[in-house]
């Protein structure tokens, strides 16, 4: 081996993590090479010297502190174990209230279902009969009527088309709205607007049907004529 390879093994040689063959090679090399011999001697000298450094004993304070810490830790662990958990408390509470016999358990379940259904029924009825809810519904209906009428009066074709959807949501239109819709079916300049007004009037009362049958002679658009005829036909059923 060359000097560089030999020197790389010096640490192994000093520490003792080396096989016998390599150890012999190093010894043979340093016998012949003075440079490597000097370096190994220098390293060995300081390595051996380190052996004089004594192992010291810590003060008793270290032991006392450790055992105090350990004792405190054990106590904390014990307290953690004894601390009642929410889950355990809930389990105990339920155990006290739930009957042990299956027959009683079934009865209890049945009673709870009946109580739940009854409560639900009364709550629902309360909501249905609520004056405020009825008033709100009435207001929403009026808003829809106003919106539908105002949209039918729009000049733009796009706005008129929008009213097709809205007018169909109008429920129980009042007389003024009905008159406006009938006037639209008779005389509106656009076919789409006439159809939308007709859509809003459907399903009609016999009086409106009569008005609409008179309107048939006023129509120029085949589409509106067909729609009127269709509405008359459907209304008979």
């Amino acid at each position, binding site marked *: 081996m060359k000097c560089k390879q030999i020197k790389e093994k010096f640490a192994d040689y000093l520490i003792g993590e080396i096989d016998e063959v390599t150890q012999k090679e190093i010894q043979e090399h340093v016998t012949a090479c003075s440079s490597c011999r000097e370096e190994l001697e220098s390293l060995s000298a300081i390595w051996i010297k380190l052996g004089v450094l004594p192992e010291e004993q810590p003060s008793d304070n270290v032991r006392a502190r*450790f055992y105090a*810490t350990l004792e405190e830790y054990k106590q904390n662990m014990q307290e953690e174990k004894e601390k009642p958990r929410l889950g355990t408390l809930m389990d105990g509470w339920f155990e006290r209230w739930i009957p042990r016999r299956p027959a009683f358990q079934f009865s209890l379940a049945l009673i709870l279902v009946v109580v739940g259904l009854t409560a639900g029924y009364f709550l629902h009825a309360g909501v249905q009969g609520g004056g405020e809810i009825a008033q709100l519904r009435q207001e929403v209906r009026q808003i829809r009527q106003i919106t539908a009428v105002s949209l039918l009066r729009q000049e733009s074709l796009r706005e008129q088309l929008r009213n097709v959807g809205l007018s169909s949501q109008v429920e129980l239109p009042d007389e003024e709205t009905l008159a406006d819709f009938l006037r639209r079916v008779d005389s509106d300049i656009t076919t789409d607007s006439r159809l939308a007004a007709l859509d809003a009037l459907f399903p009609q009362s016999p009086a409106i049907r009569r008005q609409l049958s008179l309107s048939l002679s006023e129509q120029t658009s085949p589409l509106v004529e067909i729609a009127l005829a269709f509405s008359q036909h459907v209304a008979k059923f």
Partner: protein
Amino acid sequence: MNKTSDNNLMVQVRDGNVEKLAVLFERYHVMLYNFFLRLTGNRGISEDLVQDVFVRVLKYRASYQGQDKFTIWLYRIARNAHIDFLRKRKDEVSLGEQWDEAHSLESSPPEKVEQAQEIARLNLALAKLPLKKREVIILSRFQNLKYKEIAELKGCHIGTVKALIHRSIKDLGKAYFELSGGMAS
């Protein structure tokens, strides 16, 4: 006691039988104390660090894997405790102030004074090394860790550890030579 029983004890500590840590403390607290003492050169700080290590063992006991060698795991905690200590202190503790004890032995027999001076010189030479080199010498020379164990502890290759030990011994020799006034003994 063999190392397997160290691991078994630590597994028991991990699983809640924390009293077993007392056995491990009795086995390793002196070794840890000397590790810290050679790193810091200060007895008080070394005692605090030993305490810190066992507090951490309790704190992180759940993270112990049964297949890890206990001493490697313990040294890993010890190294982290020392690094955290240095971060808190911002700079490395001066080892000289602790090791300068030879002067108090002036009335002792000459051979004892000479031995004390030799020890002080070696400690000062160690203190002159950067932490990385000082630590690797302490681990291999005083804590008797193998290359493989040091590499595992430091998270590096065995070849890197070998090269570092070689350089560290060389630098230690130079530092000792300078402290001896250039007189090789």
